[in-house]
């Protein structure tokens, strides 16, 4: 009974911390060494981190690695966070740098994934999550969508890592160019020029699909 009460009390205390503790307080507590506070911060951002890493890398395994490295780095260096930017920008800066490293390694090894892989290496049909409004399925259309998805992945793979990153953050994640510049430790103007080059390349790559 005592252990059940303790377990229930501990679980609800963490949920309460997550629901009510403002971020600044969590960060300060994590800086002071509170593991519970750091865990609460991880839960606030883990979905966004995985979403970004999964879409960029196309691999659950790689996304998991990026998640691991990003939050371990955050844990190690949270003492250096000075509230000069939002914690969101700070953690995303770590994640984008790791993703850039991953993209650069892929460029070197020439691994251009056209499909998304799960942790055991099996293919996941990303486009299956796109809703189909028709009342019946069409296998031919499904195949078309898969092929289209593969072509888009391939076109994205032809961008430089930085172009890929900026396009991902702008087009898919919806961030503003100023925020993207902060995350990539550059200026808004540079981010804008990088986006311009990325869209120019993609238009050429995808022109034949239209």
């Amino acid at each position, binding site marked *: 009974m005592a252990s059940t009460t303790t377990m229930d009390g501990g679980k609800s205390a963490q949920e309460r911390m997550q629901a009510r*503790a403002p971020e600044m307080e969590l960060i300060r507590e994590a800086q002071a060494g509170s593991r519970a506070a750091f865990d609460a911060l991880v839960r606030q951002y883990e979905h966004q981190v995985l979403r970004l890493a999964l879409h960029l890398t196309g691999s659950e395994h790689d996304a998991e690695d990026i998640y691991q490295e990003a939050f371990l780095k955050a844990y190690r260096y949270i003492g250096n966070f000075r509230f000069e930017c939002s914690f969101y920008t700070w953690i995303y800066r770590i994640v984008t740098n790791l993703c850039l490293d991953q993209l650069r390694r892929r460029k070197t090894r020439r691994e251009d994934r056209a499909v998304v892989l799960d942790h055991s290496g099996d293919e996941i049909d990303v486009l299956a999550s796109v809703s189909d409004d028709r009342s019946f399925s069409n296998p031919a259309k499904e195949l078309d969508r898969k092929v289209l998805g593969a072509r888009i992945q391939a076109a994205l793979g032809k961008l430089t890592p930085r172009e890929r990153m900026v396009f991902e953050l702008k087009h898919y994640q919806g961030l503003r160019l100023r925020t993207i510049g902060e995350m990539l430790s550059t200026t808004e103007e540079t981010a804008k020029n990088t986006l311009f080059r990325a869209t120019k390349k993609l238009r050429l790559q*995808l022109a034949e699909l239209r």
Partner: protein
Amino acid sequence: MNCELAHERIVTAAYGELPDEQLHELERHMTACPDCHSDREQLLAMKILANALPVVEPPANLVARSRLRLEEALDALPPKRWYERLTQRTMNNFASLQAAPVAACLLLVVGAGAGILGGYEYAQSRAAHAAALAHDVNRPHPIDQPAAEITNISSIVRQPNSEMVEVRYNQVVPQQMEGSLDDPKIRELLMLASENSASAGVRDDSVGLLAAECRAGHSCQAAGIRDALMVVLRYDKNAGVRLKALDGLEPYVAADTRVRDAVLEALLNDTDPRIRTKAVDILEPVEADTSVRQVLHTVANSDQNPHIRTVSREVLSRVPEIQ
């Protein structure tokens, strides 16, 4: 406008980042330039194609697996030693000082001066004490500080072969100040209260006064009040206090992009629906700003509160669609 510049601005406009006056100029150029018009059509088509590769939510298994692996890694890390924590704290304090070099120099000068004066006073009091001891060994010396609260005892030293004991203690002396809201010292105390008070009531009072100053158009930026209100809006744990801060920032949404950004962040991230609703209201005068529209689009589609989604859509519907 030449076509090379137009091609760049077409991209910026397609992603909602082109300032409105440049957008108008671009529209005029595209009306007269079929090549640029075609360029925009191609870009829009590319965006549609790119959207055929959607961003998916990570599967629950992946989230759980990643979390477990992280927890194992964190558990395996050795705990920080006391000297590592002390070094980190010292570096944090030093870094804070580095960010304000003038303040750091002043602090140094004031600290050195206080130290010299304090040392002199201490030496004088020691001499007086020794003289008093010599004349009045057995008379007790009561503590005569009725107004000051003793917070802790820092040391107790008994003099050898003697009944005399030296006790060192620290005191907090409550202070009080009265003055006008225009007094810089009063404002400084109010700003400190907005950030540091453990009592939500005190923070609420201080933020309410600061917000009223801003709404009344009194000097709000030079004294850093606007910045203090933005910090409160981002980080205070009490929703009522955050609402007052938002109220105080309302007059500056149009002119100050930092204030606008803080309000947009509140609209996207604040957990209290009253604050998100208020944020939509005060962003309405700047609804033509493309950043604001972008955020309103996101909120209109994904806010968990149906009323806020409806209000956002209504605001957006008042702005003509960008072509």
